[in-house]
């Protein structure tokens, strides 16, 4: 978030401030491990996400809001594990003997949930200064916000949270069938050709349904789709480049914040050109 995904974090924090919420970065946080460990006997990989939740508890706070969808999944699942399984909770607490005990006291939410549940779409719509009129954006959920069911922030089969978000900002959401299909995730390091294939299927589907851009919530989806389409364009000249946005960038833009915090220069698919075309960027 501080290096490659500045364009997800900065507009997000700034936007939430304008909406009346101050996000405090937790001190001494560590990487949560990105993926939730799926083995029954594996506790060492639960340590990292739980340690972050302990840091929140230490600050006397009871809620952790995440910007990254990938991390949301890991943190929320680890939290559920501690809440539901007393034996594992005890083992984890006694292993982390240098930390205070943790019993699942903190709630893990995603940024979109804060927008939907604590601010509300109507309030958000009222604060919009620059409606994103005529911007046809396809919401791309990926996996981590909606699967598995126990952590889903919306309906698993027919999510609407990004549609509602885009409508509040005045944009035109374009639903398409591949919006919850996996981008390939960590396979980028071992099977990058597969990633290009997935990108092709997802982007073609969005394009054929009339989308001009995609809106994303995860830096890995951004990388996979972005790099994927770069490779596709190299191989097939006729492949149309699709601008990729983070939802926080569209939020900041619509709230009338300075476009520099969006760091569009880090985006794939030249989104600035599209925004200028639509008179959404000076």
């Amino acid at each position, binding site marked *: 978030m501080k290096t490659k*995904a500045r364009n997800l974090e900065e507009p997000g924090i700034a936007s939430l401030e304008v909406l009346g919420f101050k996000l405090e970065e937790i001190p001494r946080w560590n990487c949560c491990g990105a*993926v939730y*460990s*799926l083995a029954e006997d594996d506790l060492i*990989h639960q340590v990292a996400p739980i340690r972050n939740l302990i840091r929140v508890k230490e600050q006397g706070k009871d809620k952790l809001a995440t910007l990254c969808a990938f991390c949301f999944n890991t943190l929320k699942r680890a939290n559920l594990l501690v809440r539901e399984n007393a034996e594992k909770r005890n083992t984890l607490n006694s292993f982390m003997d240098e930390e205070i005990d943790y019993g699942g006291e903190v709630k893990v939410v995603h940024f979109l949930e804060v927008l939907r549940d604590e601010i509300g779409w109507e309030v958000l719509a009222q604060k919009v200064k620059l409606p994103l009129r005529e911007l046809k954006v396809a919401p791309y959920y990926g996996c981590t916000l909606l699967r598995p069911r126990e952590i889903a922030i919306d309906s698993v089969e027919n999510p609407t949270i990004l549609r509602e978000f885009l409508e509040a900002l005045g944009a035109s959401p374009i639903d398409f069938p591949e919006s919850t299909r996996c981008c390939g*995730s960590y396979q980028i*390091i071992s099977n990058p050709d597969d990633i290009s294939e997935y990108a092709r299927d997802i982007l073609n589907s969005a394009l054929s349904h009339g989308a001009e851009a995609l809106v994303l919530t995860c*830096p890995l989806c951004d990388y996979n789709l972005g790099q994927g389409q770069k490779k596709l364009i190299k191989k097939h000249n006729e492949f149309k480049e699709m601008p990729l946005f983070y939802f926080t960038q569209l939020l900041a833009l619509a709230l009338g914040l300075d476009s520099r915090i969006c760091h569009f220069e880090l985006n794939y698919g030249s989104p600035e050109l599209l925004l200028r075309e639509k008179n959404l960027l000076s």
Partner: protein
Amino acid sequence: MSVTISPKRLRREFVRKVKELSGQNLQLCYQCGMCSGNCPAASNMDLSPRQIIELTRLGLEEEIANSKTVWICASCFACTVNCPRGFDLSKMMEAIRLLTLRKNIDYIRPEDISPQERCELPQIAMVSGLRKFTG
């Protein structure tokens, strides 16, 4: 594909370990194929997700070890979420991967990722990839 099923080929230890690590009841599956249908990587797999479950139940460790299926799984949970019997296939995939990784046999080495990519990849890609593919 043709597979020989016999008590001699049933690797009991393999089946037991997969059940233990995944915490799943392998008998739940009735081979409907929803998992394979929803899997985004299925077209690249030699053995489909559905087949992996059946082969595991039959203890055919060798066929599974020779297949690349579990290594191109992206842990997207589409299979789990769509299974009509509530079987968590993503946990079973992880269990099979771990049985290899815990023998100190890694699927990739960090050095195999090009220096250029190590610079450009978001950190979560490196962290998640190394967790899934190295022990």
